């Protein structure tokens, strides 16, 4: 609405009140259109009081925590899918493609503090190669309070990823390694200015019980954020539900960016392939020292709604297999991360997969009558087991067939009820029984208020159309 109409609205209600002038003037003052500026006007005064609402010191912090919380939730929401991918990777690894080079194990064991990470590093051939090529940096800085030491032992980094190896050690008997932990990471540019966004953090979940725990935290830098920051600050915080910090361990250190500067190779690919009658395009490959990214698009005309491709791996011309650890899924396609072949410089790579994880579009929507518990629509092999109110939330339990070979979670992110009110899910719990059945409970925030018939939309389902495929492509390495 323009200024003129506002004026009209204000003046349309002509009354002979002695205050008419007062209000009309004040409105004029507010819109800075006309009026006697020197005469204080009442609505304007109210506006002034409002505009001068004191801004608290914590406002910047609130924005920063909000962004971090959002990044974490976005990450968590994708995690059931991520977890499925990494579980698949682990399965492949146990089929026997891992060989630890004794030289590697010996080398890493010599670095004080890094010996506890040998086992973890051996799960990723690309990271081993990165260590072999001097990309590991020993850090060894720590912060101790309340009887517990937080120590960053070492870092492996390239332009897109920073792997932080850290430990918690109980120093005073009786002290406890914090539970319910969150990591808050501060990244700084070369001028010491804090970088507000552009990275996502994974790992660092609640430490196990015991006196020492060594874990790994991975920072994924978005492309726009390149080059990698020169200094890092890692804070381990216990965050209460309201965002109030309860306890914090903080260490800062510099990153030797010269070690990996320029180590990146990008390649445009336009290889189309099909699986289960669906068409996909292998769009781009980016090679970094610590891992490789493949971007895959799904054809918008595909009959099925595709959640993902299963059993992905890359094989080079010498038969070395590079497995996938994680994938992120965007509306436009997927980015799949593989162990890095950067240092082995293969000439050709073959992407192979087992099939398509998908549902026909019409099976994605299901309806549930809250009163009768009757389920309509959705996949025929899905059954509803019951619903429960927990506090303000409501959870639903479903069962469906499941193949352990394809560890994929059942997911629904949103539901609307009869009053068109929408609810978002925030908790997924799954339980896999021996008989190939997955039992999954999904909890919706504020779901206590749901009324009538609910409409769900499935965003992940453990059904796989088996249809192996391979795509071969030349790498950009000479």
């Amino acid at each position, binding site marked *: *609405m*323009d200024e003129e*109409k*506002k004026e009209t*609205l*204000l003046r*349309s*209600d002509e*009354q002979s*009140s*002695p*205050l*008419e002038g*007062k*209000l009309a003037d004040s*409105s004029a003052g*507010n819109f800075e259109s006309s009026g006697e500026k020197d005469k204080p006007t*009442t*609505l304007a*005064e*109210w*506006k002034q*009081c*409002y*505009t*001068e*609402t*004191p*801004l*608290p010191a*914590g*406002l*910047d912090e*609130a*924005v920063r*925590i*909000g*962004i971090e*919380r*959002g*990044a974490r*939730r*976005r990450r968590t*929401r994708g995690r059931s899918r991520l977890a499925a991918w990494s579980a698949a990777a682990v399965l492949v690894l146990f089929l026997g493609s891992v060989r630890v080079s004794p030289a590697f194990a010996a080398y890493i064991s010599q670095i004080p503090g890094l010996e506890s990470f040998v086992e973890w590093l051996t799960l990723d051939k690309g990271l081993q190669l990165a260590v072999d090529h001097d990309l590991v940096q020993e850090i060894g800085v720590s912060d101790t309070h309340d009887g517990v030491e937080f120590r960053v032992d070492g870092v492996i980094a390239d332009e897109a990823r920073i792997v932080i190896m850290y430990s918690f050690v109980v120093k005073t008997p009786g002290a406890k390694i914090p539970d319910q932990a969150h990591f808050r990471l501060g990244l700084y540019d070369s001028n010491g200015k804090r*970088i*507000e*966004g*552009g*990275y996502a953090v994974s790992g660092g979940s609640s430490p196990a019980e015991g006196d020492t725990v060594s874990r790994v935290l991975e920072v994924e830098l*978005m492309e*726009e*954020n390149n080059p990698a920051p020169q200094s890092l600050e890692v804070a381990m915080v216990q965050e209460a539900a*309201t*965002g109030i910090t309860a306890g914090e361990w903080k260490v800062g250190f510099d990153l030797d960016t010269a070690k990996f500067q320029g180590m990146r190779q990008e390649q445009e690919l336009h290889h189309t392939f099909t699986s289960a009658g669906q068409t996909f395009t292998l769009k781009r490959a980016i090679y970094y020292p610590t891992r490789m990214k493949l971007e895959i698009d799904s054809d918008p005309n595909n009959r099925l709604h595709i959640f993902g491709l299963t059993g992905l791996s890359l094989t080079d011309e010498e038969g070395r297999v590079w497995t996938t650890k994680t994938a992120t899924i*965007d*509306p436009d396609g997927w980015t799949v991360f593989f162990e890095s072949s950067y240092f082995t410089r293969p000439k050709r790579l073959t992407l192979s997969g087992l099939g398509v994880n998908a549902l026909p579009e019409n099976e994605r929507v299901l309806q549930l009558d809250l009163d009768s518990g009757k389920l309509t629509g959705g996949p025929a092999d899905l059954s509803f087991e019951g619903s429960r109110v927990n506090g*303000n939330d409501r959870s639903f339990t479903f069962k469906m067939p499941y193949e352990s070979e394809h560890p994929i979670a059942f997911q629904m992110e949103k539901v609307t009820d009869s009053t068109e009110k929408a609810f978002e899910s925030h908790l997924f719990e799954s339980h896999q029984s021996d008989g190939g059945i997955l039992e999954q409970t999904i909890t919706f925030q*504020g779901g206590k208020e749901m009324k009538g018939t609910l409409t769900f939309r499935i965003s992940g389902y453990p059904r796989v159309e088996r249809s192996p495929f391979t795509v071969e492509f030349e790498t950009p390495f000479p």
Partner: protein
Amino acid sequence: MTDWAAKARRGDDSAFAELAHACKEKLYRIAFAYLRNEADALEAVQETVCRAYQKIRKLKEPEHVLTWITRILLNYCADEVKRRSRSGIAPADYAAAAWDHPSDPDLQAAVRGLDPKYRQIVILMYFEGYTLTEIASLLDLPSGTVKTRLHKALQELRRHLGEGEDAHG
């Protein structure tokens, strides 16, 4: 702001941070007017930024990003007020909101006497400069209803002020 929104939608996190910082004061003032204390208003800003970050890729019209994010904030505030009234938490002291105390006693009485749903519209339109169409979209109301409420708000203000004036004069 539209530029930042467009970039943020494509996954540019620093653009999102710029955007969030550009709106933070507005969001805080609106939240404070609604929730009436600093801690709750800060939490509202934090949660709004978080939800906006999660959903920014679904933003359809970057040019309307401010309305979009304000709507997230208002939804949060409304839920929060409902949640509190259900769990029996008393609303924060009215006196905590300094801007509710214009020095003009007539106006103070008028502001205090104003129905919250009218007050909200006055704040959004006259103090924060949202258009009638934007407010209708923000509050999920037909624009006719917004117009009526605006009218009533002004009428009520006039009535209070009128009474005050009469009493003084």
